[in-house]
């Protein structure tokens, strides 16, 4: 039996985000799902580095217990910033698509662009 910890929650969140990314047709909802996937990955990495009675990775704290692994937290920082950058840039592309095709529905956009090519 897998306990309810950060890793299992992140797997559920990842699944929800992935389903939203694949099944939903609205581009903005797709981007929200992408954000959810990213948050799930961040949660997963930080949970992997955590331990039940670990202290925060700051040396000055009165060290009742050992600090947690600081490496995942440092790596995750890049993921957060790059997620922000990707979402901002992707939203701009969604705006450009909406301006051209007047819809956020990915199927309609595909059909309209295929009709344009013919």
């Amino acid at each position, binding site marked *: 039996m897998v306990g309810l910890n950060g890793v299992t929650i992140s797997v559920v969140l990842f699944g929800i985000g992935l389903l939203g990314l694949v099944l939903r047709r609205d581009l903005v909802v797709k981007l929200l799902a992408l954000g959810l996937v990213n948050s799930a990955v961040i949660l997963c990495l930080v949970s992997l580095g955590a331990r039940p009675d670990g202290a925060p990775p700051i040396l000055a704290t009165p060290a009742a217990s050992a600090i947690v692994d600081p490496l995942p937290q440092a790596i995750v920082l890049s993921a957060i*910033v790059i997620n922000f950058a990707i979402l901002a840039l992707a939203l701009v592309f969604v705006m450009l698509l909406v301006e051209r095709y007047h819809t956020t529905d990915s199927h309609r956009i595909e059909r309209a662009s295929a009709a344009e090519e013919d």
Partner: protein
Amino acid sequence: MRRAPVFTILAAIVLVAGFCAVVLTGFGFREPSAGDIDAWADVARRTGAINVVSSIYLNARLFDTLLEVLVFAVAVLGVHFYLTARGRPEPVESIPESNVVRIAADILLPPILLISIYVVLHGHLSPGGGFSGGVIAGTGLLLAAIALGTDTVTARLGPRLLDRAEWGTLLGILFLAFAPIFAGRPLLSDLLPAGTPGRLASGGSILLYNALIGAKVFVGSWVIVRHFVDHRGEI
């Protein structure tokens, strides 16, 4: 037409199952030994910073952080480029904000900026750092933009100053990374002494990096917000 959703659902299930399988194997993850963590704590002691995380991403793995800042700068440049090329649409009539929002913004903005400066400057001593502090300041400016309108805020800050600050901070970060060469030290090493751990003036160059990254993230997030608000249109 009916088959397409079935395929996508199947593909999604396969993907999720694959991910779960990877998770069940634990990503090949092994519990970090006390020695591993001690090694990182030693890195922090060497740099003079108390915060082990910031001593990793601003000292031991500085190269990663530099490229991360570059990715952020490229995203800001992309937003700037595509939305400027699109031209400014018909200005949407702004809804006048109530006095509550305006007065709340007046009261809250100074403490928000003060907290952000604290978070940036104490990045090597406590949780926080340039990225989070910069986002706090950018959010404060967003509050001002909600209360006053983006045009007023941009005019008060000076649009040219913002453009210069955006690239000036990036050049500053890159210069700081390359500057140790001129002092006869290896690339990406510290320029300042480690100092006494726990003091504000400690941690080598981490303080400078945090300040520059904070300014960079502040300006960059404001540029992104401003462009999005300027180009809000009707679908």
